[in-house]
Structures are given as C-alpha cells and as structure tokens.
C-alpha cells in the first residue's frame, strides 16, 4: 500500500516543480524546434536528393528524430535533479523515510518521464502542424515510445547523478554524451547507407531504437525490425531502472 503512496508522492513532486518553472518549459521546447526548422528546412530545400533517397519528405523523416531528441535531452538532464536534491538537502528527507527507495526512485523517474513526454507532445503538435503528411494515428504510439525512452534515460541519468558530487560534473558528462548520441542515432539521416565500419556505433546506441520505432509510428518507415526496436528498448529500460534503484538503495551520506 505504501508503495503506491511513495510513487505518487514523488510523481506529484516532480510535476509540481515542473509546472512551477514555466520558463523552463518554454526553454526546453525552443531548442529542438530550432533544430527542426533550421536543419529540416535547410536540408529539404537545398538537397532535394535526400528526400528521394529516403522515399519520404526530409521534414517528415526528421520529425521523429526531433521528437526523440526532445524526450532524450529532457529526461537525461532530469537525472541531474538528484544532485540538486543532495545540494539543497531534500535528498535526506527521502533517504530517511521508511518508504521503499526503489519505489521512490521509480516515482521520480515516472514524474520526470511524464514531463518529458508532455514536452515532446508540445513539440509534436507543432511538427504535425508543419508537416501534414505525418500519421496522426501513430502519434499516441510515438508518445508511448518516447515515454519508454524517457524512463530509460532518466534512470540512466539518475544512476550517473547518484554517483556524482557536483552538478558541474554531471553537466560535463551530459554535454559529452548528449550530442554524439543524438547524431549517431539516425535522428538526422538514415542509417541504411552508412559505411559498414560506423554502423556498429549506431547499433550500440539505445537512441537508434527509439528513433526507429518512433519513426515507424509517425512516418510509417523503419530501418530495423519493429519488434527488435521494442525488445531492445524494454530490455534497456529494465536494466537502467534496476541500476538506478540499486544505486539509490545504496546511497548513504558517507
């Protein structure tokens, strides 16, 4: 019974905090939107060949990439709040509570994922308005995929952040990881035609599977078998969630 309480408590907290910081909501949308507009319009206008090679309009191709990018950045960075909680003391309030830490961290990841997906949803509305060829029916499934992606990377973020002592350290790791992961995920260009030597890099990047599955739902094309995408995502989400719960369970003030 208490498990439900702690999950709800942490979910409630993350949502409250999120909606109180309205400027942040706006800020996190602007970045991916600029990517979409400048990258998308630039490429589709100047390189008509791209669209022909992919088989769909480049803007449509890029749309799921931007959606996943939004989710990924928001959720991974969300992990940093664990460090802020340590700095501002709230972490102790959670650590000393009799409730299960596993469920506490799960509630937190759920909360962060809900906000990440909300953000993605806002982006998607804009994107769907700009690119009418996207499948409206697939939007819900695409958001579902983004939700799993968010759980996965938020948990990873929490696991890393729990080991860090300073927000700057985490920021550094985030900066080093975020852009390569996005660029090497097939968010911006199809992975089929890449040279065989670089392909493995894409295959070990979890984001590749998120982008591919989201693209399947939003556009109707995919580079990999859909069931493979789903299996990899669910498996990695389970692993990262387990990791974050384990690190959090072991957290002390030493």
């Amino acid at each position, binding site marked *: *019974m*208490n498990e439900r*309480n*702690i999950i*709800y*408590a942490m979910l*409630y*907290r993350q949502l*409250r*905090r999120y909606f*109180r*910081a309205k400027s942040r909501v706006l800020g996190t949308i602007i970045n991916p939107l600029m990517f979409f507009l400048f990258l998308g319009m630039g490429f589709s206008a100047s390189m008509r060949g791209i669209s022909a090679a992919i088989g769909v309009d480049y803007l449509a191709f890029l749309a799921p990439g931007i959606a996943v990018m939004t989710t990924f950045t928001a959720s991974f960075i969300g992990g940093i709040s664990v460090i802020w909680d340590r700095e*501002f*003391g*709230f*972490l*102790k*309030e*959670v*650590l*000393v*509570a*009799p*409730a299960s830490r596993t469920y*506490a961290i799960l509630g937190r990841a759920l909360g962060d994922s809900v906000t990440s997906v909300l953000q993605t949803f806002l982006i998607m509305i804009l994107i769907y308005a700009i690119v009418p060829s996207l499948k409206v029916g697939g939007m819900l499934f695409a958001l579902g995929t983004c939700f799993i992606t968010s759980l996965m990377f938020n948990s990873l973020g929490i696991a890393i952040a729990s080991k860090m002592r300073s927000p700057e350290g985490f920021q550094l790791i985030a900066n080093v990881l975020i852009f390569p992961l996005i660029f090497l995920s097939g968010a911006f260009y199809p992975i089929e035609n890449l040279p065989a030597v670089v392909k493995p890099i894409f295959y070990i990047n979890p984001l590749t599977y998120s982008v591919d599955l989201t693209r399947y739902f939003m556009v109707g094309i995919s580079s990999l078998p859909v069931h493979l995408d789903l299996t990899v995502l669910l498996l990695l989400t389970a692993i990262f969630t387990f990791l974050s719960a384990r690190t959090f369970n072991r957290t*002390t*003030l*030493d």
Partner: protein
Amino acid sequence: MSAISVRNLVKKFGSLTAVDGISFDVEKGEIFGFLGPNGAGKTTTINILVTLMRPTSGEAYVAGYNVVEEPVKVRERIGIVFQDPSVDRNLTGWENLYIHGLVYGLRGEELRRRVEESLEFAELTKFKDVEVKNYSGGMIRRLEIARGLMHKPEILFLDEPTIGLDPQTRAKIWEYVEKLRDEEGVTVFLTTHYIEEAERLCDRVAIIDHGRIVAMGSPDELKQGIGKDVIYVRVGDNSSAARLLEGLNKGMLVSYKELNGVLALSVSNASKAIPTVFEVASRMGIRIEEIKYTQPSLSDVFLHYTGREMRDEEADWREVIRMRHRMR
C-alpha cells in the same frame, strides 16, 4: 528498554575519527542533548542514529532496533530535523508537508487534516501557499519541526534546532519541544552548541568534544560535579592581592589563585563569602576595584573537562578564566 542505546560507537572518515567510541542511553520521554563545539561529531552521531551513515564500529539501537540491521524499522519510528534545511525550496509549505505525509503512509482526509494541523502548529497557515524559498530562516525551521512531528514519531532528532534563529523564535521552539515531551511523551535527542539551550531544555546533557563524551548528566549534576562558585576580585596590584589573600580565612576557600592583581576565589557559597571579602579588604585598607562572581555554567563544565572554552567570554575576563582553569 531505552529509547536510544549506543555502545562504543566509532565513525572514521579516512584518517579522521569523527566519533571516537561513545556510549550512552537515552530514556523514553526525556530530552537528551549533545553539547559540543563545531566538528565535535554531533551531526555524524545523528546521521548514524537515523540510519543515513554506517558506523565504522560499535552498535546503536533506536526504539529497540539496530540501526544497521533494521534501518526501516528505525525510520518508521523517528522524526528528524537536520542541521541544514531539507525542504524542497521550490514547493510551498503545504506541498512539502503533503509529500511528507504521503511518504509516511498517510492518505485522504487524514493526510489533509494532518497537513493543516502541522501548518497551524508551525504558525504557517497564512503562508501555506508560498514557495519555501520565500520563507525566513525561522519559518523554514518551524516548518521542518512540524514536518518531523507530522507522522507522530516516538523519537525526535533535532540537529541544532535553533541555529541562527532570533531569541524569540528560539524561545518558541524550546516551548514546542518541552510541550512535546510533556504532552506527547516524545523522546527528544538534540544537538546544540548553545550552552543556554542545553541548560534550559535538556533533562540530561552529554558534553562531546573531538568525538568523545567527556561528561554526562543533568545540567545540575554536571555543574555540581565541577565544584563551587568562583569570586573574582580585582584589587589593582599583586601585592594588595597577596595581602588580601593573607587576611582571608583559608577555611572558607576551596581553592584560590591570583594573577595580575585579580584574585579568583573558589568558594562553596559566593553570596555568603562576598561580604566577608569586603569586610577584610576594608579592614586592611585595600581598595576593591571590581568584584564579580559566577556560578558554574555548562560552559565551565566544558572548560573543566576539555581545557578549552565553548564560547568567547568578555575579553577582560579571559585571563581569569584561564587562570581559574590552572587553579584546579
């Protein structure tokens, strides 16, 4: 069964021994205080007792449960106010309490009622929808104490509950804590480096220094333990001081010391001895420039056991304090 029972507790951080083999018991329903200077190991001890740190060695039981083996059982029975704020600054007072209640298993009407009660207790009802980052230090402290009590713990830990607060707020918090003990029977373990707080509030005090308990007992016991009142007499120069000392009946002095024209006389009852001192001085024609007496305070107790001062005395008297120490 004691509320808290600690045996040979040690905590090391690398080569630093923050807690150095302490043992003590806290009885149910008492206010027990750790009095000690910065870095004495007070917070470290609390962190171990509330299950947030593992001891290097030794054992600690809180509410009958071993803090290392059954941390969740311990957590269910305690409330804590940490030394540094641990509220979510971006949430309102109401939200902080609401989340706390949820985490401690409250729900529905009961939860909402307790939140309101706690707000009232902390006298923050008017500010319940204000983000905590806009609260004053005193308001945050009251919110945290109310939060620590919201789930009705058996044992309440207060780490420097009134640090940095104004005297009014401090007095109010003392009242709260006493009320808790008297009306709810809550056991309170607190740390402080304010002498006044320990004297006024604690049923028993352990004086802690460098990770060790140097003395323990009720404030009265501790003060009696180190002896008597001290009278300081300033007579100007060493020779008059020596002459005055000659004239005084040695039987009334427990011990004495003189330095730079100041006599420090340790007596069993200062109010009776002072008139005698005046009498003798005027008989011998010695002019007394200044006279002052102190009953031992916990600060003297600290000095007695550690050889150092807990806080700065007036500069004038610093010397005599040091002298008094040497006298023993």
